[in-house]
């Protein structure tokens, strides 16, 4: 496969290019499309070749296509290469090749990365993508540090690089150049900014801890405010000329920073509010919701640019602020659409940027080589970044609760990559005012290549080398493996208990304010209700119980009440169609022909497979060992520790696999619900047995277990579900836990009276819970009659931990009778 890729793709690209070169050599006439009849016509042309008609769009699309092919070939290359050299570097190199081809054909670089193209068509979607998927909590909790790095770090870099270069120029190291101090400072300001595109591209390959990542990433996004200001200020100063700069101008410059930065952010927030309101209002035309995100995001960018505010900041804050509301308001499908589309656009843009960065290099017109200037720039950029980071971190660590370690600082300083933004700014310089523009462009390009290619390649080995002490040399024994994983889980749990982010007065106050006022304004009422997280989990569990019920019933052949009963089906459809059709269309379809429905995805195979090889006793041990290790390797649940990456260009929702999460969830919630149930119902063991279906009698009344081990939740369900042995014993409920007494499986309660006012939460009013994406995909719909769902427990400790949002119906009845006998404590959803 790889070798054929090697052969085909470059050839295809080469051929394409020759074709384009040939074609674009033709005249540049752009006529009205479809106007076929031209001047001197001797006969009727049947088919004509109309290159001029399609030239512009065709070239654009061809370039997009070529960039896509380039990315494809880069990814499909030998994995060894891609693991050493980051994609971005490979794309640039490929750009060199392509540029060489174009150059060879045309003797001039017809395709350059022009600043308007870059700034208006390629950059906005990358920033929008970055901000839309930004881990907000992490971002805001580190916002102080990020701002310090972005503002002071960038200013420091700009000033020191500019001044040092000027100093060296004055010292005569660079030879004769037509440059003044202001121009050096201008150059410093455009080369100082860390570039978000490059940072994402390189850090994607290198897994660093999340705080470090957010610091570098956040800095790269927020420093645009500073860069834009510095660039414009120095540009204006250069135009004004040296003598007219006095204190007034300088103070204006500082003031403009405030205006540009805060203005840009504020504008972004305004657009975010607009977007949230828009998505709130689209109830019936959900198909265009997804489009709004992109349109409004782009509007935010352009509007800010029009007002000469910081466009990147505007888009950043638009994305950051609207995430939550947009995701809550939109239909599940729209959410997925937006995510996928964003990733496609962002990936595409990034690829094109890097390819064009490469192509642009192959152009003899722009290259001016001045050894001193270039080498000194590289040196200063590198050194001052390191100094700046260490200095600022030293100051920050005095105030931070969690100090930033030295290793992190090294990675941060090494990760200060420059990229296309710097090049774009350099290309926008006015040649009249800055005669050495080409020198600046050349230097910028060299700096970009150096950082992206060299630093990109060496970043991963550096990170690994710095952390090299933890390497495990020998094969771990089973117990070590098990414990390692257990420790990971323990750590993750304790981190959650401690609250990684911190819970001070400000965050709580803000959360309260946000919940009460902002969400009320920006979120759909339906979405607001669904925020009750535990409720949705409970709902999911109920659905799973329902499935189990059906499968059990099927196994026993008692599905007549579902199958034959027309009424049930009809009721079901009628009731739900209007209200829930838009929400759960897939489920409706499933239910309508459930013969085809396979519930094996839910119900686990209950027949244990004999997996051990029992050939001979002598071989057993070795095989056991192998199997055991293999099993542990395969099946241990991964903990959060293994998924550091909060933001990735090509993936989203990086988490444990859906099944894993679901399994753990179900188990935990089930065990909790169980212990609560038993706490309530454990007081009255006797009465429960008689009332119900014979199936429940198989539950074990294990009254003789004083110590709470072996949690016997619904063994029938266990057999149905397969392998739950209640391992997660809720030890904290130990004392309240009277074992198994009367824990009949609520799934099999046989009261099937039809109560039309179903108190299933999703049937209550029109505004009900929309099952999550996962529920829709995995779980079938439940028949109307499904009632045996686990009763809601009214906790004695806190009033609302497990209660649903719509408390109305069920709980008042139960509130007053917490200790009564069983007849009263019937399943809640009748």
């Amino acid at each position, binding site marked *: 496969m790889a070798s054929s890729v090697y052969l085909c793709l470059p050839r295809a690209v080469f051929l394409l290019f020759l074709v384009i070169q040939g074609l674009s050599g033709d005249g540049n006439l752009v006529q009205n499309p479809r106007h076929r009849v031209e001047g001197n016509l001797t006969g009727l042309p049947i088919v004509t070749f109309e290159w001029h008609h399609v030239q512009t769009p065709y070239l654009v699309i061809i370039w997009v296509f070529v960039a896509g092919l380039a990315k494809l070939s880069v990814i499909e290359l030998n994995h060894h290469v891609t693991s050493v050299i980051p994609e971005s570097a490979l794309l640039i190199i490929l750009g060199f090749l392509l540029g060489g081809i174009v150059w060879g054909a045309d003797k001039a670089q017809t395709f350059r990365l022009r600043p308007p193209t870059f700034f208006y068509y390629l950059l906005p979607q990358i920033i929008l993508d970055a901000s839309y998927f930004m881990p907000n909590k992490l971002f805001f909790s580190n916002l102080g540090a990020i701002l310090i790095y972005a503002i002071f770090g960038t200013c420091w870099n700009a000033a020191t690089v500019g001044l040092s270069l000027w100093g060296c120029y004055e010292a005569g190291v660079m030879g004769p150049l037509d440059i003044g101090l202001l121009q050096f400072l201008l150059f410093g300001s455009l080369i100082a900014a860390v570039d978000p595109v490059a940072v994402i591209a390189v850090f994607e390959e290198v897994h660093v801890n999340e705080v470090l990542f957010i610091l570098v990433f956040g800095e790269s996004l927020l420093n645009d405010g500073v860069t834009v200001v510095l660039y414009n200020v120095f540009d204006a100063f250069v135009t004004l000329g040296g003598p007219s700069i006095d204190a007034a101008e300088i103070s204006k410059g500082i003031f403009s920073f405030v205006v540009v930065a805060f203005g840009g952010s504020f504008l972004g927030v305004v657009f975010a509010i607009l977007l949230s309101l828009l998505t709130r209002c689209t109830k019936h035309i959900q198909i265009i919701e997804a489009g709004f995100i992109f349109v409004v995001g782009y509007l935010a960018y352009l509007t800010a640019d029009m007002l000469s505010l910081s466009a990147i900041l505007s888009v950043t804050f638009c994305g950051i602020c609207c995430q939550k509301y947009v995701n809550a308001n939109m239909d599940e499908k729209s959410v997925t659409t937006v995510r996928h589309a964003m990733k496609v656009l962002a990936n595409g843009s990034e690829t094109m940027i890097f390819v064009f960065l490469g192509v642009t290099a192959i152009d003899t017109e722009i290259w001016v080589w001045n050894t001193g200037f270039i080498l000194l720039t590289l040196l200063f950029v590198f050194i001052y970044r390191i100094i700046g980071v260490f200095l600022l971190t030293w100051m920050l660590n005095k105030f931070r*609760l969690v100090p930033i370690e030295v290793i992190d600082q090294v990675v941060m300083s090494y990760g200060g990559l420059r990229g296309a933004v710097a090049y774009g700014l350099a290309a926008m310089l006015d040649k009249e005012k800055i005669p050495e523009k080409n020198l600046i462009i050349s230097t910028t390009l060299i700096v970009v290549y150096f950082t992206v290619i060299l630093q990109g390649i060496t970043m991963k080995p550096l990170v690994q080398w710095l952390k090299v002490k*933890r390497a495990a040399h020998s094969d771990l*024994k*089973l*117990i070590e493996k*098990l*414990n*390692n*994983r*257990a*420790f*990971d*889980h*323990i*750590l*993750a*749990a*304790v981190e*959650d*208990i*401690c*609250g990684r982010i911190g*819970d001070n007065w400000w965050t709580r106050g803000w959360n309260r304010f946000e919940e009460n006022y902002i969400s009320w304004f920006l979120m759909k009422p339906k979405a607001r209700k669904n925020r009750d997280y*535990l409720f949705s989990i409970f709902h999911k569990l109920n659905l799973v119980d329902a499935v189990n019920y059906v499968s059990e019933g099927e196994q026993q052949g008692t599905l007549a009440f579902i199958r034959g009963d027309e009424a049930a089906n009809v009721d079901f459809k009628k009731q739900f169609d209007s209200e829930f059709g838009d929400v759960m269309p897939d489920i409706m379809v499933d239910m309508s022909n459930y013969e085809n429905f396979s519930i094996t995805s839910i119900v*686990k195979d209950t027949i*244990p*497979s004999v*997996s*051990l090889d029992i050939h001979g006793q002598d071989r057993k041990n070795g095989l*056991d060992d192998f199997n*055991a290790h293999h099993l*542990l390797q*395969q099946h*241990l*649940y991964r*903990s*959060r520790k293994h998924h550091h990456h909060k933001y990735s260009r090509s993936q989203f929702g990086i988490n*444990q696999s859906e*099944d894993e999460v679901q399994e*753990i*969830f179900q*188990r*935990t*919630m089930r065990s*909790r619900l169980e212990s609560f149930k038993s706490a309530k119902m454990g007081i009255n063991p006797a009465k429960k047995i008689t009332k119900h279906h014979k199936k429940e009698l198989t539950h074990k009344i294990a009254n003789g277990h004083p110590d709470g*081990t072996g949690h016997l939740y619904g063994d029938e369900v266990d057999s149905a579900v397969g*392998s739950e*042995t209640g*391992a*997660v*014993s809720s*030890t*904290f*409920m*130990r*004392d309240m836990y009277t074992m198994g007494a009367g824990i009949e499986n609520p799934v099999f309660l046989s009261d099937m009276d039809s109560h039309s006012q179903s108190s299933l939460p999703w049937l209550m009013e029109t505004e009900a819970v929309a099952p999550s994406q996962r529920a829709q995909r995995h779980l079938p719909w439940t028949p109307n009659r499904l009632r045996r769902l686990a009763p809601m427990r009214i906790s004695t400790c*806190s*009033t609302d*931990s*497990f209660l649903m949002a719509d408390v109305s119906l069920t709980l008042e009845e139960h509130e007053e009778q917490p200790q009564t006998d069983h007849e009263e404590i019937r399943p809640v959803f009748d």
Partner: protein
Amino acid sequence: MGSTNSTLLKIPNVEVLMQETGFSPAHIIRLHDRFKALDKEGRGHLCPQDFGEIKELAMNPIGDRIIGAFFSPGKETVDFHTFVKILAHFRPVDKDRPKEPNSPEPINSRSNKLKFAFQLYDQDKDGKISRDELLKVLRAMLGMQVTEEQLESIADRTIQEADLDRDDAISFEEFRKSLEKVNIDHKMSIRFLR
């Protein structure tokens, strides 16, 4: 924070707490804020439901055990002191602590960390991890695809590897010995509790 001292004063016996656990005042305040946030009704102590509110714990296969570890046997509530003391287990080890012969081992010493982990396995507190208890832990941590027999074989092998005195259970000493190559300091420490 301007209210540092006043917040500290509100916590009873905070000096003793800081001494025992080694947390700095800033950390104590942070943990106190967290405690208050979890204790939604302001009762001054936490009960299991409050821990249950933490969403991510439901995603954790042994989350419920860890919650249980906060509650001493017989008690149903956790007060702030206990909360902090348990979390102190996860402080990174102070490398440059002077070794005082008479002072008790700090809570975050290697062996105390191991004891904490051991208690998570040993639910009935008899000082040994029996085969059943190990099975339960394995069950919790392994996916549904693993069958009972596979589970039992893993448990058997694990005990075999670690059990030195052949009593078919893992005592604390055996547990410690089997993990001597593992860097417990790293594996059971949370950076931001330094």
